[in-house]
């Protein structure tokens, strides 16, 4: 008698485990809970994978904040479907894979987004593809992410390539007529990111007839006098730099110390942080251009949603946003919702892919002034990065493209 009860318990448990496995195997594939036809109001769950701890923890948290605010701004729903968010911490490949497994098998999310970090996006999206869950990236910038032929992968955000071409375009169309000679010295950090950016910049600028000098620096360099002297010896009108905040800071400081004063200095991808202003100082930083994500709070016509985002952020978190991560994530989540809408509220991989190809948001349609048109590779083609310029009071108004410039500001050399 005694022995039967545990047996029954075991059997029941076994059945339950099997059932759980079966249901977690393909939560959004085929006919399961997630999506169904219009008029349906089944809930949609979006997973966010991003580094929530470690070196990029604060950026990851900003990412989540921005996305949460965008969802709130949309009434927490898409069409009739109520939408909820679940977060998972992931930075290195293993974390990201574990995060995806958990989101899919335990949280039963329908779509995954994120990520701020390329390693997270790379490994996480591969795992999600295996589990047949669509992945909509908003903020990892490595070019190759949308060159993997991964059908379940879409990127609404910018690539390193977009930064490179935006900076080259800014030189060609914006600065070209203002500098004495069309000569540029390009120096990028020597990792894969900087190298890729530099290549694009070089070929675009050469094609436009610029005289191009080339150099590089290590992002962890303790001294960059060599790089600065090489640039100085080339006597360029424009010094075009790519890197991260600390190394760009060091380059600018060293240039000041070595009395290297080109007509224009343009930073790509970073250099817009307050720490840069503090470290370099108003005297040497004023007039420096930065091609970057921009929150564009002061350009309401160009970026219609950003003022609203900023107000909501301040109201909810009672602090200033950390850089532009949450602003970009805000736009990213808005784009994710657009794609779901275009997929008719269905969240299986085929519907999302088909929906993404249908989406057609013109430039200026997303909160930060971008549009949304996804190509076959899954990459958003309507991305326009702005150029801002450091002012002596530590502000960073947009100076390019012209339509993003607020009245009273204009592009001028130092």
């Amino acid at each position, binding site marked *: 008698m005694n022995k039967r009860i545990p047996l029954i318990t075991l059997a029941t448990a076994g059945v339950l485990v099997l059932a759980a496995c079966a249901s977690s195997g393909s939560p959004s594939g085929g006919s399961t809970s997630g999506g169904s036809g219009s008029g349906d109001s089944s809930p949609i769950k979006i997973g966010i994978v991003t580094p929530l*701890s*470690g*070196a*990029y*923890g*604060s*950026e990851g948290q900003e990412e989540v904040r921005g996305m949460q605010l965008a969802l709130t701004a949309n009434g927490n729903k898409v069409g009739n479907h109520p939408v909820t968010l679940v977060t998972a911490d992931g930075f290195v490949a293993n974390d990201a894979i574990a995060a995806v497994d958990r989101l899919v098998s335990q949280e039963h999310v329908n779509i995954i987004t994120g990520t701020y970090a390329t390693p997270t996006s790379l490994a996480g999206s591969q795992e999600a593809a295996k589990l047949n869950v669509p992945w909509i990236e908003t903020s990892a910038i490595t070019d190759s992410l949308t060159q993997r032929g991964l059908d379940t992968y879409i990127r609404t955000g910018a690539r390193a390539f977009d930064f490179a071409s935006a900076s080259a375009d800014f030189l060609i169309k914006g600065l070209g007529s203002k500098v004495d000679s069309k000569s540029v010295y390009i120096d990028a950090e*020597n990792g894969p990111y900087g190298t890729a950016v530099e290549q694009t910049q070089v070929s675009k600028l050469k094609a436009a007839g610029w005289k191009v000098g080339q*150099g*590089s*620096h*290590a992002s*962890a*360099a*303790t*001294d*960059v*006098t*060599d*790089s600065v*002297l*090489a640039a100085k*010896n080339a006597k360029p009108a424009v010094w075009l730099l790519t890197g991260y*905040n*600390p190394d760009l*800071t*060091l380059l600018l*400081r060293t240039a*000041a*110390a*070595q*009395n290297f004063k080109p007509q224009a200095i343009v930073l790509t991808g970073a250099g817009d*942080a*307050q*720490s*840069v202003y*503090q*470290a370099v*100082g108003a*005297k*040497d930083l004023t007039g420096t251009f930065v091609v970057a994500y921009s929150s564009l709070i002061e350009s309401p016509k160009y970026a219609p949603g950003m003022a609203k985002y900023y107000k909501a952020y301040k109201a909810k978190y009672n602090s200033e946003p*950390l850089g532009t991560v949450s602003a970009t994530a805000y736009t990213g989540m808005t784009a994710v919702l657009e794609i779901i809408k275009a997929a008719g509220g269905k969240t299986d991989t085929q519907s999302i892919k088909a929906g993404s190809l249908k989406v057609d948001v013109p430039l200026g349609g997303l909160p930060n002034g971008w549009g949304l048109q996804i190509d076959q590779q899954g990459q958003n083609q309507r991305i326009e990065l702005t150029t801002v310029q450091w002012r002596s009071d530590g502000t960073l108004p947009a100076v390019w493209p012209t339509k993003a410039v607020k009245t009273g500001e204009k592009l001028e050399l130092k």
Partner: protein
Amino acid sequence: MGVLTIIISGVLVGGMYALIAIGLNAVFGVVRVVNFAHGELVVLGMYTAYFAWTVWSVDPYITAVLIALPLGFLVGLVIQRFVVQRLLDEPLMQMFATFGLLMLLQNLFLAFTRGEPKAVRVAASSASLDFFGVSVSVSRLVVLGAAIVVTIILVVFLRQTLYGAAVRAVSQDRGTAALMGINVKVLYMVAFGVSGAIALMAGALMSPIYTASPALGFSFVLPAFAVVVLGGLGSIGGSLIGGLIVGVVEALSGYFLDPALKQAVWFTLFLAVLVIRPAGLFGRAGSEEIGQR
């Protein structure tokens, strides 16, 4: 002019490597502990200077002497007393422990700063002197000066005083040193304290030059490790010269070869020295084999 500029910039960076290496050597050479968290102590010095500067408007150079030195001494003492002391006979565990400390400090920095870089800006940040037409950064010159002063103080202490002899004795044979009446535990704590004091002071002195960020320590501690081995374990003067050599070699190879290669060049040099003269340039042959007894 270009070459002179490069050599000078190399000497100045070498001064930083030297100052950090000297602190590392105080522990490495005496206690025979590899303190992986040494770079994080330097970063802690930078944050200390930043904090004192923003909150109390204290000049980083004043912080370096009045706050960073005593605070660093205390931090070093605590690390020795509560982490390393317990693992004295387990060198491998010591490495894991100091590595753990590295992670702990980095994550604390992250938690407190949200990863935002912190920069100090004072008059010295952009001040420079003219040296035969080459501009020499004052803030870097100060670090080089500090490295030289610290070297002189430590060398005189180690060579001329009874306590200095005691330190050298402990580094050679701590068991026998105890028989002489030397309190090895206290001496280890002091060595760690001095190392911590130099590290935090270095950080504070470097705060007008570099933007503090949690992972910055690594950029400095890697060359500093090479400098310690190059100059010789326990040889403070060797650390100073080794630091200058690494700085100049790095700068010249960056300028004449490729900035991407400069670490590779001094690393090759370092390996060559290691193979030809394992005791380092200024270490005594054989002394690298004297472990703890």
